[in-house]
């Protein structure tokens, strides 16, 4: 019993440190990375279905390159190898840009899949009414595709969260970095890593919850979705 | 109860014997829908009972309950005198003497299942096994027969359903009618006392219906010792008239009429029965 209390009080101390010092950095990488990922995913996802060849080619190369290699290798390359070619970036920049691009490459496939899942009849109807391709995409297809993108996007968001831990290898003082630092100071490895895992778990559940709410809001009023619109 | 087809006085013996399937006050709900409504039923050993009625009237549910693929919400189900399910009724009309709830654990269900076999509308053959293996797998794994014994039994059954030579065929290589016949052999291989047939020809192309019905006819007519009880849910009225000792017309979860085929098909007593038969026979 005594050791349980000991375990809990040490864990609390660990939690305080991880939350106070590591969490802000994790959130910063996550937020920045999300922005990069969304922009990249939209650009590349649309690019993959575009009729403009260079855009399509560029998108495909980007997607294959980033999906085909691991995030850790990418982080290392951008942080250690790129300076050799004359471009030196701060660790935070590398973390945000690289993890964002990595997630974005998977996101591009989600965007592409969702667009292609919108029934062809929608395109035909819009074209018959006189819409241009761009207008159709903006006003008819993307709004319908958007809701289909939310669940996989939620998963990718959690993958991004998990990847932020990799940033410790390029010196970013996020949660896992702090945990490692604590480990060298104290010997409470069990408490340290258990708390770290639980912290990530709670964050992941929070992200999932947020995404589900987002999905419900976007879907309000449609077939099969109760939502706010039908609540009256 | 039922009249034996040859008019002998076996009626007396049969009526004194315990029914092999007995249901009392059986109620089954799926969500808001009541599929069986305080149903009472006694089936005597060796009886051939046809069950007719419109879709959703609960016909298949009766079969599935008999082989414990579904449970019940209220009432009592007995197989050969032993309780399969006992669920006390809500309110004051408790069913069965001192009915304690017997939701039936897996082992209990499995033991009683040994006496029942079922053939499904969509065959449900195991696609990754040959016809013979489909038939022998359960006897080997469940009854503990050796492969040789099971194989011999299986071959005999395949011959009985007219499929000698198809031992090594996979279901995908067989026609619908052939698959259903294998399914019948598979159920028979376990040597059940009660055979359930759940619309076994409804999923077949018309050209295969005849061969399957013939197998059922043989099963019914070759049962000289009246040892095989058959419950047959079907839309094939002429067939039912031919082989059944007794016909049940089910509507809205209740048995509306219960009598010999001569009565049900030629002179039904209930208006609803007449309505149903009119719709079906004059379609």
């Amino acid at each position: 019993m005594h050791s349980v209390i000991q375990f809990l009080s040490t864990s609390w101390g660990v939690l305080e440190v991880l939350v106070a010092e590591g969490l802000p950095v994790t959130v910063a990488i996550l937020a920045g990375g999300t922005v990069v990922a969304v922009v990249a995913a939209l650009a590349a996802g649309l690019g993959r279905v575009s009729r403009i060849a260079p855009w399509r080619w560029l998108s495909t190369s980007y997607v294959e390159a980033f999906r085909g290699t691991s995030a850790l290798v990418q982080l290392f390359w951008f942080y250690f190898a790129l300076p050799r070619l004359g471009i030196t970036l701060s660790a935070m920049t590398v973390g945000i840009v690289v993890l964002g691009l990595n997630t974005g490459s998977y996101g591009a496939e989600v965007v592409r899949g969702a667009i292609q899942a919108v029934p062809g009849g929608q395109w035909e109807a819009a074209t018959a009414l006189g819409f241009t391709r761009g207008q159709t995409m903006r006003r008819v297809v993307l709004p319908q595709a958007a809701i289909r993108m939310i669940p996989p996007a939620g998963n990718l968001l959690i993958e991004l969260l998990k990847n932020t831990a990799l940033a410790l290898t390029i010196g970013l003082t996020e949660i896992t970095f702090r945990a490692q630092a604590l480990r060298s100071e104290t010997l409470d490895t069990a408490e340290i890593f258990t708390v770290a895992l639980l912290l990530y778990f709670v964050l992941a559940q929070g992200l999932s919850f947020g995404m589900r709410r987002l999905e419900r809001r976007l879907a309000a009023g449609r077939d099969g979705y109760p939502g706010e619109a039908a609540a009256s | 109860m039922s009249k034996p087809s040859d008019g002998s006085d076996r009626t007396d013996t049969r009526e004194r014997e315990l029914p092999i399937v007995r249901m009392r006050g059986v109620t089954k709900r799926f969500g808001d829908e009541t599929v069986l409504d305080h149903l009472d039923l006694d089936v005597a050993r060796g009886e051939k009972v046809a069950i007719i009625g419109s879709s959703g009237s609960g016909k298949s549910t009766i079969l599935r309950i008999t082989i414990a693929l579904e449970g019940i919400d209220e009432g009592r189900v007995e197989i050969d005198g032993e309780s399969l399910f006992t669920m006390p009724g809500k309110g004051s009309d408790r069913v069965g003497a001192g009915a304690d709830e017997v939701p039936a654990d897996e082992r209990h269900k499995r033991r009683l299942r040994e006496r029942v076999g079922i053939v499904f509308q969509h065959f449900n053959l195991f696609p990754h096994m040959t016809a013979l293996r489909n038939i022998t797998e359960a006897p080997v794994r469940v009854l503990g027969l050796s492969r040789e014994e099971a194989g011999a039994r299986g071959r005999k059954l395949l011959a009985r359903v007219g499929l000698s030579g198809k031992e090594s065929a996979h279901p995908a290589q067989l026609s619908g009618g052939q698959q259903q016949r294998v399914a019948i052999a598979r159920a028979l291989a376990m040597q059940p006392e009660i055979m359930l047939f759940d619309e076994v020809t409804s999923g077949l192309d018309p050209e295969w219906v005849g061969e399957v019905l013939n197998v059922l006819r043989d099963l019914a007519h070759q049962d000289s010792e009246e040892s095989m009880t058959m419950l047959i849910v079907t839309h094939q009225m002429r067939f039912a008239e031919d082989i059944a000792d007794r016909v049940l017309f089910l509507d809205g979860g209740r048995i509306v009429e219960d009598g010999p085929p001569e009565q049900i098909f030629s002179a039904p007593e209930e208006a609803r029965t007449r309505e149903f038969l009119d719709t079906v026979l004059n379609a």
Partner: protein
Amino acid sequence: MTWDWSYTWQIVPALLRGLVVTLEATFLGFAFALVVGLLWAMIRRGAPGLLRTAVVWFVEFIRSTPLLVQLFFIYYVLPQWGLVLSPLVAGVLGLGLHYSAYTAEVYRSGIDAVPKGQWDAATALGFGRLETLWRIVLPQAIPPIIPALGNRLIAIFKDSPLLAVITVTELLQQAKLLGAENFRYLEPLTLVGVIFLILSLISSRFVRWMEVWSEQAV
């Protein structure tokens, strides 16, 4: 151009040694994930309530938390509880356990895809739950999901560099060592990236070919 070609050729043997370790870790981890993932899937399907709930939560926990932290846990915490593992074994265990959560999901979708009638028929014939799962359902569930499992293998391959952080001298670690030795990171890291890219592109094509082939065979 700052690229040094002679250096590049020089470091290839060392990198290949690292690649061997990478592949070892990948396939061993995959084997572990295949077996343990099946175990999770079977428990989800057939075990009594408490065990099943525990497994569901455990799998969700592993899936939602970083593989890196799980590796640290195995490598740093287990020794304190008496279980000291070499970096490679710890790495394989970490990869296998993490990805068992994903293979469990793949198995689950395969099992769910088997028509309910198969369960009914097996139950009616007297088979128990476990026997039905093993003899009737799994043989039907697994062939369609092989491409999905292949994709998990590729994912494990791409995550193998994480083992570098617990000092396994796989491909990335070799590159780091070489880079530190010679103060030149560009060539080793680029080569590592290229090797990963080529191998994963080839295996992705192969998995996609398997998907098409398996659909045609139906």
